[in-house]
């Protein structure tokens, strides 16, 4: 009677192919050009600090001070830049900032302990590129609070301590609870407080059961 066994030769051939695939895979492994140097939880603590930006009031002093080099980067597009920008600003869009040369440049600036300030039209525009740069490890990068529009209003009003001088992000303009009370009929005030919970587990791919 003939008894099957694993064919040693065939097994060796299969195994060699397996090893070759793994070795080729490991050899061709390239490290990504850019890596996050900040873990997400740290990134959250960095970004929740709303005082990390530069105020409209401070920026001129910072630029004129000769103690530490300061680079000002305008991340808006060319047209907006051409229509008006803060003096001494360089125009580099946020996406271009991650170019090979610019990353090299930013690294050099970081080594020189130079401050890099980015700004956009609004606070919002510069905020997310700033977050990306922070997460890449450029902790010398900061942003102009309130953005260019706020800066211009600060310049135009010439006030030293008005609301434009110190822009505050994510501030509630109204007392929402008061408005809710004012406008809502008194019997429905509590309806919006209901907590909504969804209990659903993240699926691990699609279910396809298999067996032998």
């Amino acid at each position, binding site marked *: 009677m003939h*008894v099957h066994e*694993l064919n040693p030769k065939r097994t060796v051939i299969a195994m060699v192919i397996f090893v070759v695939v793994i070795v080729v895979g490991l050899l061709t492994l390239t490290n990504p050009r850019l890596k996050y140097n900040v873990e997400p939880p740290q990134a959250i603590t960095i970004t929740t600090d709303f005082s990390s930006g530069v105020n409209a009031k401070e920026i001129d002093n910072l630029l004129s001070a000769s103690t530490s080099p300061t680079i000002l980067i305008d991340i808006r597009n060319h047209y907006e830049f051409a229509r008006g920008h803060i003096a001494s600003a360089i125009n580099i869009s946020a996406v271009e900032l991650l170019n090979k040369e610019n990353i090299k440049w930013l690294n050099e600036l970081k080594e020189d302990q130079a401050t890099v300030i980015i700004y956009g039209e609004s606070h919002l525009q510069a905020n997310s590129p700033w977050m990306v740069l922070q997460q890449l490890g450029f902790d010398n990068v900061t942003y102009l609070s309130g953005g260019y529009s706020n800066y211009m209003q600060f310049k135009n009003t010439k006030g030293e301590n008005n609301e434009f001088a110190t822009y505050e992000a994510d501030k509630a303009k109204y007392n929402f609870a008061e408005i809710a009370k004012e406008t809502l009929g008194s019997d429905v005030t509590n309806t919006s407080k209901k907590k909504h919970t969804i209990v659903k587990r993240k699926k691990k791919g699609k279910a396809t059961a298999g067996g032998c």
Partner: protein
Amino acid sequence: MGPLIPNEIITGQWDFVIALLIGGAFGFVLEASGFSSSRNIAGVFYGYNFVVLRVFFTGMIVAMVGLLYFSYMGWINIDLVFVLPTYLNSMLLGGFIMGLGFVIGGFCPGTSYTAAAIGKIDGMVFAGSTLIGIFLFAEFFPLFEGFYYANNLGNITIGEMFGLSNEVIAFAFVVIAIVAFYVTWLIEKRVRKNMTEYKFE
């Protein structure tokens, strides 16, 4: 990159094509390993042939190690790979029934089809009976539904359960597999001494 369908590299409609290819390859390996012979399969229980154990253990450790290397190289996202939920009661009973079927019928479901494909009548009977079994199971499912879903551990892996990394588990399994290969080889050697139809190398 992978898994291809959850990452939407190819659409879900491809899964039948992939199933067909993998199924074909699986059948080929089963047949090539001699699993269409119920003697080989039942041999595990009598101790004269552990080829089933060796083939499946080899397949398992190669897949395990390969998957972890692929995950390391970024070719597959191991978190998206589907993990069967573990229903402890059903798994225990199911394993018992499967083993029983193994030793009585001499086939497991997959090998009964390969046996049927090469024209074995017992394979065809076995394959047909599995369909009857499936029908009966489905009809009487409400009776033991509670038992079926009892002790649900969720989509858990051994690594998650013991708090070990997948790499450690894979290494442990490779060692266990190789020890098992050696032990079964010893058992086979001893058992086959008394059997005339086996020539042992």
